[in-house]
């Protein structure tokens, strides 16, 4: 009998001679945070899960394997329905904000994509309606991240991978954007994995945390176990031992 987790990936991958990843990742939560020091392998883990880096990482979403089809061959990246929000946003510099935000819409089959009104609502929810006419180079870092989030969500992903998606947004609106994001993934049934360095962000949105260091999963569990339900400690109890 197999237990079907909300999300499961068994990452075993050699990144270089001196660094390999060994991460048996399991979660039952809709939103899971990847926490750990810089260089721990968090971004590489997301890229392996996404299929961005080629590997044979078995990846399961609610019990279904998403990186291989039923004949065992690799599913092409463009068919995986995995959305990614990048640390350095990767907005296409030759398109304006609106074309970036709606980039994925034309590649979705009819019926899969967002309707025009749903798309407009999505843009409005993330406070980006006034940004749509601007060229990408006229956007601030925080504005770029909002467009990046909308762009990923407009591709109707089943799995959303976020690499510090709100790091450039000012602290006052950061949590508002995160709450909006959390509400959206819950309403749409999206599974979300998010890299963050901010314990407060984790406590606000994540139902599960993976603590990763030097390519290893040090601990996993509910955020309260790591950071306490009030106040925040940068360190996990496992680090103190």
């Amino acid at each position, binding site marked *: 009998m197999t237990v079907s987790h909300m999300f499961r990936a068994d990452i075993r991958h050699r990144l270089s001679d001196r660094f390999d990843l060994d991460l048996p990742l399991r979660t039952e939560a809709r939103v899971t945070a990847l926490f750990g020091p810089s260089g721990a392998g968090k971004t590489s883990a997301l890229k392996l899960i*996404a299929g*961005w880096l080629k590997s044979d990482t078995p990846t399961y979403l609610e019990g279904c394997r998403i990186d291989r089809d039923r004949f065992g061959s690799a599913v092409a*990246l*463009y*068919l*995986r329905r*995995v*959305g*990614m929000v*990048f640390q350095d946003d*990767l907005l*296409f*510099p*030759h398109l304006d904000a609106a074309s970036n935000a709606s*980039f*994925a819409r034309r*590649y*979705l089959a009819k019926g899969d994509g967002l309707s025009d009104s749903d798309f407009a609502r999505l843009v409005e929810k993330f406070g980006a309606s006034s940004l749509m006419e601007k060229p*990408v*180079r006229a956007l601030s870092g925080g504005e770029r991240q909002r467009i990046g989030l909308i*762009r*990923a969500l407009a*591709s109707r992903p089943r799995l959303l991978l976020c690499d510090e998606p709100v790091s450039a947004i000012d602290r006052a609106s950061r949590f508002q954007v995160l709450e909006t994001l959390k509400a959206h993934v819950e309403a749409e049934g999206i599974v979300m994995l998010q890299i963050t360095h901010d314990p407060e962000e984790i406590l606000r949105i994540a139902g599960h945390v993976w603590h990763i260091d030097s390519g290893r999963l040090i601990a996993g569990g509910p955020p309260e176990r790591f950071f306490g339900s009030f106040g925040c400690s940068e360190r996990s109890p496992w680090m103190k031992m």
Partner: protein
Amino acid sequence: MSLSSIAAALGMTSDDLSALGLSFCVAALASVAVVLTATPLAWYVAKRPNRFSGILIALGSLPLVMPPTVTGYALLVILGRNGLVGRFLERTFGYVLVFHWTGAVLAAAVCSFPLYFLTARAAFAGVEPNFEQAARMMGCREIDVFRRITVPLALPGLTAAFLLGFVRALGDFGATLMVAGNIPGRTQTAAMALYDAAILGEAARARNLAAMLSVVALAALWFAGRTPAARFPDRI
């Protein structure tokens, strides 16, 4: 004032005028042929490097370093009436390339191929692969990645490549002479009319042709130098 009266005022004969016209047509057709053939190859060696890339780049660049007469001679051997391809074309379609303006197009295309190919390859290589990968994750097939991400981002470099190739084709002498000959009014391009004028001691005619070719080349190079990379300075 008609075109021929301007030409007369510049001391140009009707043969010169047709030579200039032929040069432009040959260069335009050759450039189109080069864009169609060299673009996929440039993309392939820039974006899918493998153990064959080195030899492909060498082959694609070869006409750049060969004496144009060698290139022309090679084409003549292959496409001439006794050449392998030439004989086939003549027997099957009754078509003779040599000493015909289509031969000039082919010779000019082969000579300008490396300039377009190498510049386009650099332009494609300069497109950040992360943008392409991000597009794939948003549902783009390879052809859509090429059309909507790679080409638009490489466009300044591709424009420069096209202009370089065009001027090279416009000015080709050696290879065109070998393949198409120098028949006034039929296969004589501007570069060859200039050669005739210089040999015959017609200084004014030679000067005018040289000036015209130089102005076009300078304008194209100036334009090519203006385009690259300047469009997205904040990201690339």
